[in-house]
C-alpha cells in the first residue's frame, strides 16, 4: 500500500506544471553559466588567481569542464532549495487547500503511511533534480570545455586536484548535496503539514534557510554554540570533498546532523499529521 501510494504521490508531482519549473530553471541557469564561462571564463579565473599571478604563472587548461561543474554546483546548491520547496512545500498543504486530503485520509491507508509516501515521493523528486543538476553540470561542461585538473579556491588557499582524482569526489559531493537538499525537502513537507495553503510552507522554508545562513555567516560569538547544529552550516559540506586531504570526520559529522534533521522533521510531521483535523 505504501509503495502504491508513493507511486500515486509521484504521479501527482509529475502531473503538476510547477514540477517542471525546477528542471526548466536548472536547464536555463546552467546553460547561461556555461555560455558566460565560455565567453568570459578566463577573466573570472584570473580574478581568483590574481594575487598569486604576481609571483607565479599558472600553465595548462585552467577553465575546463571540471571547474565549470564545480562552479555550477557551488552556485546552484544555494538556489536549488527554492526549486525543491516549490514542489515539496505543496505536498500536504496543497491537498488541504483543495480539500482532497479528506478523500486521501478516508482510503484504507494509515496517516503515517500517507506522510511517508509523500516524503518518499518528495525524496524521488529531489533525486531527479540533483541527478539533472549532475548530468547537466558534469556532462555538458565536459562536452563544451573538455576535462582537466580542477582548481578549487577555499579560505585556506588554492587546491589543484589531478584530473584522475576528480570523478569520485564529484560522485560523493553530489550524494552529500542530495542529502542537504533532502533536508530542505523534509523541512518544507513538515511546514506543509502545519499549513492550509501552498505559499506559506514555500516562503517559510526559504525564510528559515536565509535566517540560518545569515546566522551561520555572522562572525558573532553569541551564535557560535548554535551554528554547528544548523542544517544550513552543513549544506555546503559537499565542498569538503574537494579539499586535500578530504576531512572525512567533518563530512561524517555533517551527514549525521543532516540525517538527524531529516528524522526529527519526519517525526514532527507524523506527529502533526496524525493529529490534524481534516473535517473542518
Amino acid at each position: 500500500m505504501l509503495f502504491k501510494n508513493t507511486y500515486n504521490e509521484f504521479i501527482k508531482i509529475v502531473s503538476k506544471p510547477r514540477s517542471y519549473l525546477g528542471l526548466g530553471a536548472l536547464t536555463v541557469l546552467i546553460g547561461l553559466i556555461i555560455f558566460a564561462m565560455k565567453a568570459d571564463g578566463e577573466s573570472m579565473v584570473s580574478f581568483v588567481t590574481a594575487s598569486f599571478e604576481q609571483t607565479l604563472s599558472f600553465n595548462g587548461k585552467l577553465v575546463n569542464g571540471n571547474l565549470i561543474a564545480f562552479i555550477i554546483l557551488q552556485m546552484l546548491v544555494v538556489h536549488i532549495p527554492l526549486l525543491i520547496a516549490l514542489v515539496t512545500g505543496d505536498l500536504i498543504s496543497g491537498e488541504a487547500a483543495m480539500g482532497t486530503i479528506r478523500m486521501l485520509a478516508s482510503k484504507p491507508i494509515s496517516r503515517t503511511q500517507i506522510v511517508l509516501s509523500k516524503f518518499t515521493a518528495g525524496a524521488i523528486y529531489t533525486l531527479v533534480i540533483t541527478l539533472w543538476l549532475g548530468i547537466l553540470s558534469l556532462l555538458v561542461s565536459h562536452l563544451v570545455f573538455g576535462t582537466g585538473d580542477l582548481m578549487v579556491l577555499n579560505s585556506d588557499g588554492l587546491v589543484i586536484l589531478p584530473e584522475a582524482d576528480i570523478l569520485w569526489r564529484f560522485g560523493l559531493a553530489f550524494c552529500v548535496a542530495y542529502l542537504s537538499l533532502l533536508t530542505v525537502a523534509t523541512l518544507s513537507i513538515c511546514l506543509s503539514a502545519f499549513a492550509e495553503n501552498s505559499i506559506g510552507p514555500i516562503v517559510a522554508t526559504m525564510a528559515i534557510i536565509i535566517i540560518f545562513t545569515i546566522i551561520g555567516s555572522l562572525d558573532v560569538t553569541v551564535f557560535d554554540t548554535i551554528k554547528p547544529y544548523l542544517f544550513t552550516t552543513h549544506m555546503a559540506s559537499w565542498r569538503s570533498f574537494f579539499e586535500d586531504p578530504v576531512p572525512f570526520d567533518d563530512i561524517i559529522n555533517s551527514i549525521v546532523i543532516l540525517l538527524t534533521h531529516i528524522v526529527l522533521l519526519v517525526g514532527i510531521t507524523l506527529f502533526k499529521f496524525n493529529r490534524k483535523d481534516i473535517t473542518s
Partner: protein
Amino acid sequence: MKKNLFFSFLFLTFGVFAQEPEKVIEKINAKMAFVKDYTVNAHIDADIPMIKIMPSNAKIYFKQKDKVKIESKGITILPKQGFTELNTFLSDKSKYTAVFGDSLKIRDVDTRLINIIPNSTSGEIVLAKIWVDQKNAVIMRSQVTTQTNGTVKTDFKYGSQIGNGLPSELKFEIDVKKFKMPKSVAADINKTSADQKKAKEKQRTKGNITITLSDYKVNTGLSDSIFKEKKK
C-alpha cells in the same frame, strides 16, 4: 724608472680586476648564445603555502632571445620570473655594473659572487646577485630582486648539459607574503575570521618550486609558430 714600472703594474693589475666580473659574465653569455633553442621535459614539484598541487609534468620550449612556451596536460605552477629575465638582462653589458663579492662553496663547487647593479632605476630588476662557477662558466645560484615580484632565489644544478650551460635542476625560492584570498569567492561559512587569522599567522612566507629537467634537445631549429598563443 722602477717607480714608474711599479705604478704601471699596479694600474694594470687593478685594471684587469675591474674587467674580471664582466669577463666572467661574457663567458656565461657566450655559452648561452651557443644554445639557439631547446626543448626539455620538466618535472615540477611545488611546495607553496596556500597552494596544494601534486607534482606535475610539462614540456618547455625555449628560443633565443626570450621566447618560452610551457606545454602541460594538467595545471602546472611555475615562478613568474626566473627563466629568461636574468639571461636577457646579463646579455646587455650597458645595462649594469658588475662587482665581485665573496667566494662561497655551493655543493662542493667553488663559486664567486658577482653583484649586478643596474645602471638605470627604471628597469624591472633592482639588484641581482649571481654565484658563478668560473671553471665551467655557469651560474650556480642567483638572487634577483625585482620591482614587482619581490626576491626570487634560484639554485642551479647541472648534469650532462653543463657544456651548454643548461641546468638539470632548478630550485626556486619565492616570496609568498603577497598572497591574499579574494574573500567573496572563498566564502567558507564554517570558518570564522578568527580561524582564518590563525591560519594566516601560521602561514610560511617562503615557497619552493623544484623543476627537474631531462631529455634536452638542443638547437633543433624550433619554429616561431610554436611560441604563438593559440586562440582559446
